[in-house]
């Protein structure tokens, strides 16, 4: 087994050694520009409803060099090969469990717009191939990803499962395909392959916190993988591909600690620390990461409340929560001193969010890093709301028809309509709706009705642009894309669409067909509203991947609920029942026809006459029995023997009569 080497490359040695040393790394420095790099970040944020948001963000970047897809140092080879093989320009895959609570966890902020995802699996991809090859690439991609992530994403392969939105999902998409699997269950078998793509996996660094039971116990869990290209040089000759892996969880701080706090002060928010949320601490950085940072974000709502508190107390200056040197303030205590305080610069209002930055390397120097957050005074605040709250529901009953309704209610959010209102009566809110409907929900688009503030309006008054591709049975789903223009003063708006429920072929039903069928969520985008945070310092975005994502101009987006439509479920043993009953009827008919054909009526009568002279064995037995019972002799009746021969014919006639009546009854009662 163990071998000795051969002097094969002796000629090459001289040549190689001449330039080999010059490329050696300077020790300790991060990887040079133009090489692959990796960074890890965690953002923690207390939520108004006593929960805590944890947002893990890992970013790996690889330049598009000739060896791309073959030789990699940090970037996962499997993903690079996918990108290269299927010519992926952009792709996003998310696995989500639970529903993002837009009202209490916020809707008008970067995390909600880009990380709040519909339950189950959502996948979209933009391909860099000729339009005819896009579908083939998509199908192959779904199969590859399915294997890579141990999920049934291959169900998105069928043309009934995905759609090609033109403009409503993303502006200027090129060759975009979009598909969702609302019923996909998400669990650790999906997280493990996702972690495998990180250079440190969950062996070191921030990902050490990903304790499976704590994560899956949370209220919301969304694991996302996003691929995008970025131009690294101004002339566009050098580009790189960025793999962004995020995990967004909403957790409830340990209930035991909360209850002790609760007994003293009922409205006090629960205090938490990393170890109480995840059951683990960060014991070191991932040494491969360019940067390893933890952020604690306080929303503008909290900041405003805290400022009010400080102003009321007059104990500390207004700037206290802004100072880097602070350890405690009247509202809360942090267990570690932040390295830096970053303040959002918002032109529109006075209050703005605050981010405390903790470098993991610095804080885990002496021992495991366990950031704790303790509230001292009860604070009540609310999160930035969506311009319009969207919900979707079903109307109607029965297994034949129904209607989908999407309703918008004004939230009167701070940045939203109040801001726009100042522009006067003519101001309009653009709402972009993208809805995919499976083919067995046959939507009649002409039945669309629009109600604004309870009053029905003409469809053309509200809809600025609409694109409908009706569904084709067993071929493609129905797609509705439209831009609604609602007046700014609107309180509520709704539109409804009627549909018929279709029939599926027996082998198209999924297992457990009685559960019903899911309609994928509608994607609502507000193209005129953008979430972006501005920070005072310019070089921040270069340092931090999360903050640079926050600074991007993302349109506000929200997903509606998944709808569950019950369809008529057949009795799956029915084909066999039908076969059996039909065959029996045919056999009965055939047998009796054959008997009738070979019946000899004259002979039978003659035979009966001769037989009538003496009772049959059965009647003799019967008469003997009755005689014994009654104690007297009974003359055997002739009629009993006579009827026995005609019984079959009469019985058949009777049965046919009854069946005929039953059929007629069924037919006329319809």
């Amino acid at each position, binding site marked *: 087994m163990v071998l000795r080497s051969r002097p094969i490359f002796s000629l*090459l040695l001289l040549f190689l050694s001449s330039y080999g*040393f010059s490329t050696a790394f300077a020790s300790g420095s991060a990887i040079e520009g133009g090489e692959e790099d990796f960074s890890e970040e965690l953002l923690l944020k207390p939520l108004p409803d006593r929960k805590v948001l944890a947002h893990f963000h890992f970013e790996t970047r690889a330049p598009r060099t000739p060896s791309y897809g073959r030789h990699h140092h940090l970037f996962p080879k499997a993903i690079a090969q996918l990108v290269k*093989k299927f010519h992926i320009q952009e792709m996003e895959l998310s696995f989500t469990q639970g529903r993002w609570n837009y009202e209490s966890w916020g809707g008008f902020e970067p995390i909600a717009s880009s990380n709040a995802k519909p339950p189950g699996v959502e996948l979209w991809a933009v391909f860099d191939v000729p339009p005819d090859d896009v579908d083939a690439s998509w199908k192959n991609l779904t199969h590859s990803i399915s294997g890579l992530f141990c999920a049934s994403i291959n169900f998105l392969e069928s043309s009934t499962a995905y759609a090609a939105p033109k403009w409503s999902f993303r502006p200027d998409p090129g060759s975009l395909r979009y598909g969702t699997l609302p019923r996909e269950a998400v669990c650790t078998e999906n997280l493990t392959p996702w972690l495998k793509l990180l250079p440190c996996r969950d062996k070191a660094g921030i990902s050490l916190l990903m304790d499976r039971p704590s994560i899956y116990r949370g209220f919301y869990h969304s694991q996302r993988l996003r691929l995008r290209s970025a131009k690294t040089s101004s002339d566009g000759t050098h580009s790189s591909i960025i793999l962004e892996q995020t995990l967004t969880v909403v957790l409830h701080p340990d209930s035991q600690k909360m209850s002790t706090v609760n007994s003293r002060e009922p409205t006090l928010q629960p205090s938490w620390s990393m170890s109480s949320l995840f059951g683990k601490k960060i014991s070191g950085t991932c040494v491969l990461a360019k940067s390893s940072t933890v952020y604690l974000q306080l929303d503008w709502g909290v900041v405003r409340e805290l400022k009010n508190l400080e102003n009321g107390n007059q104990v500390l200056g207004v700037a206290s929560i802004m100072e880097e040197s602070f350890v405690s303030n009247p509202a809360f205590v942090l267990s570690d001193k932040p390295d830096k305080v970053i303040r959002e610069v918002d032109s529109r209002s006075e209050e703005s969010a605050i981010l405390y930055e903790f470098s993991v390397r610095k804080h885990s120097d002496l021992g495991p890093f366990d950031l704790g957050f303790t509230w001292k005074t009860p604070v009540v605040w609310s999160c930035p709301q969506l311009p319009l709250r969207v919900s979707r529901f079903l109307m109607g009953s029965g297994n034949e028809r129904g209607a989908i309704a999407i309703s918008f209610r004004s939230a009167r959010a701070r940045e939203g309509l109040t801001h726009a209102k100042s522009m006067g009566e003519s101001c309009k809110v653009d709402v972009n709706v993208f809805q995919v409907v499976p083919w067995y929900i046959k939507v009649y688009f002409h039945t669309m009705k629009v109600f604004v503030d309870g009053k029905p309006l003409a469809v053309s008054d509200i809809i600025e642009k609409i694109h409908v591709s009706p569904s084709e049975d067993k071929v493609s789903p129905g797609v509705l894309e439209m831009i609604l223009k609602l007046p700014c003063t609107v309180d509520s708006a709704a539109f409804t669409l009627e549909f018929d429920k279709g029939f599926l072929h027996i082998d198209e039903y999924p297992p457990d067909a009685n559960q019903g069928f899911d309609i994928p969520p509608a994607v609502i985008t507000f193209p005129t509203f953008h979430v972006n945070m501005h920070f005072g310092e310019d070089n921040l975005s270069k340092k931090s991947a999360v903050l640079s994502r926050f600074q991007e101009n993302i349109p506000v987006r929200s997903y509606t609920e998944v709808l569950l439509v019950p369809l008529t479920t057949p009795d799956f043993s029915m084909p066999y029942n039908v076969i059996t009953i039909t065959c*029996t009827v045919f056999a009965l008919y*055939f047998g009796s026809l054959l008997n009738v054909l*070979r019946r*000899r009526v004259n002979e*039978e009568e003659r035979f009966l006459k001769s037989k009538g002279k003496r009772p049959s064995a059965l009647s003799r037995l019967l008469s003997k029995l009755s005689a014994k019972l009654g104690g007297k002799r009974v003359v055997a009746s002739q009629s009993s023997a006579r009827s026995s021969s005609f019984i079959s014919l009469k019985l058949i006639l009777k049965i046919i009569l009854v069946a005929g009546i039953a059929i007629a009854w069924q037919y006329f009662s319809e």
Partner: protein
Amino acid sequence: MAEITESPESSPDPPETKSEQREEFDPETMRRTKPGVKRLVLTFSVLISFVIGFPFLWKSVEIYRAPLLFDDIDLLSKRMESEPLRFPCNFRAVFVGFDFGSADFDRADDLQSSISNRMDKFVSGTSPCGTCSSNYSVSVTMESNSRCIQSQSGRHSCSYQCGAISSIDFRGDDESVDDSLERVLGGECSGLAGKVYTVVIVNKDAEDKAIIGKYRHAWIVGRVQEEEAVEKIAEIFVKVFSNGGKEEGLIHGEFMPVGADGRIVLSFNLLNSDPQDWIYDWDFNMIEEHMLSPVVDTLGPVANITVESQVLYYTPKSSYAYWDEELKSFILNTGDLPFFVNSNEWHLDTSTAAGGRSKVLQLVLYIPSAKECPLNLQLPNGEISKANGYISPMWGGVVVWNPMNCFQDPEKYPAWHKISPQDLQKIFEVFVAQIRQLVGLKSDNLFIGTSVRSIMLASEKGFTEWELDALTRQHTCFNLWSCATTLSSLSRLVQSLPRMIIMDEIGKQVKLSMEAAKQAESDASHGIYAAAAVSARQSRALAEDAFFHPSIMSVSYYSFEHCFAVYSPFFLPVSLHVVLAALREWKRYRQEKKKYLTWKARVDASS
């Protein structure tokens, strides 16, 4: 109806009055008219139509099965088993500096026959597939003072300039001798099937040595007797040029690590077992450009090779190494090697880019962590392995590389290092040697036979020409063998499942595969190596395609039980009716006919 045809003896006491009135006619036992055949014909026509209709029904529920050439497949697999592929080879021995007179024209022929005899002795026994045993030709040329005599068989072909070999200076260094021999002998041969291998015997006062060159020739220099030379020549021909210089029982041809589509993916992995201690990186582009691409190009005729690499972190090994005070290192025994690869932590993915049925060979460079550094592999004889690596056939190879600064205290924050080109050079020499072993060649440069101990010159490309010839032969043979086994298992599968649908496409693939296999066989027998290799590869790929066709894998065949369940509710009761009716009518007809005949007999008797 039972009552109607009831036999008359069921009525025990016949009416007395009637028998008294007409004694000559008893209606119970005789009748006056001929029994009618109307009903009999009716019931029988129904029965017969059922019987006739049955084959049509059977045909309609029959499933489609494309005809497969079962007999041909059996023939092919039998042929592959009984007589392995025979490649023709031509061996040429050139004797330089032996004395022969002008009348010694038979001497070359004598030498030729004695070499052939020796070779037959070496070949004796079963010869593995892919060698040119039992199908070779030997020619002998004697050259002395610009005078040449040739044996009968070699006279018309492969002429080289007589006396050219004598002029070569065999005292020069081996590389230059090899090159000058190639210039003389490497010319085109006409009219010969297969490759020509030459051994040159130089009889002169010099240090005895035997050298096998990079091309298709070897030379022996020294004072040798003719008998001794014949022995040596025969051994080199058989063991080296024909068998590829392999040790017996190392890796068999069946374990050729080439995918069914004729592709190999070499996946190089650099494993930093604990990046907290140190992180190493490599410049793989440079390695590929300068070291691997010649190897990949050389192996082109055997397999289409692609190279990939990745660096993985936090990948501890799964076996335990102990500290050896004498050797001042951590030692891993040969017995621990099966547990070295940690499949939980080493994510050596299969390549998505390759797809299909390519073979992925994992080549792993393992860098131990500080607490197990230096890590050395121990040979069974107690020595430390120089290459510090091992191979696992069909999986790949592992090389352990110990960083220089093993005993240095690791820094708090590990530094990024790049493995120096010199170190990489050494590591990749080992990797190439491992690849050679994985495809079934020797990894060292000494050939030790029973009579000859020779040095093999190594090629810069990693593989010499005669080694490639041997590999091509072996690979062709293995592909054909694998095609035959795949097809025969397909035919067994198809024959064992009579209700399985077989698509036309499968039939077509099987047919094409058989054609390619035949083509490969005929090419091989004509000595066209490249064409035979291509056809053999194609035949194997087609056979695998047919075997793994999705319609075979997924279509659950419509079972006979299912068919029975669907049709029995109708046919069981109806056939009961039809058969019973036919039976009764037949019985009644016979009975009535008997009655008529008795009456007729009585009438005839009375009249």
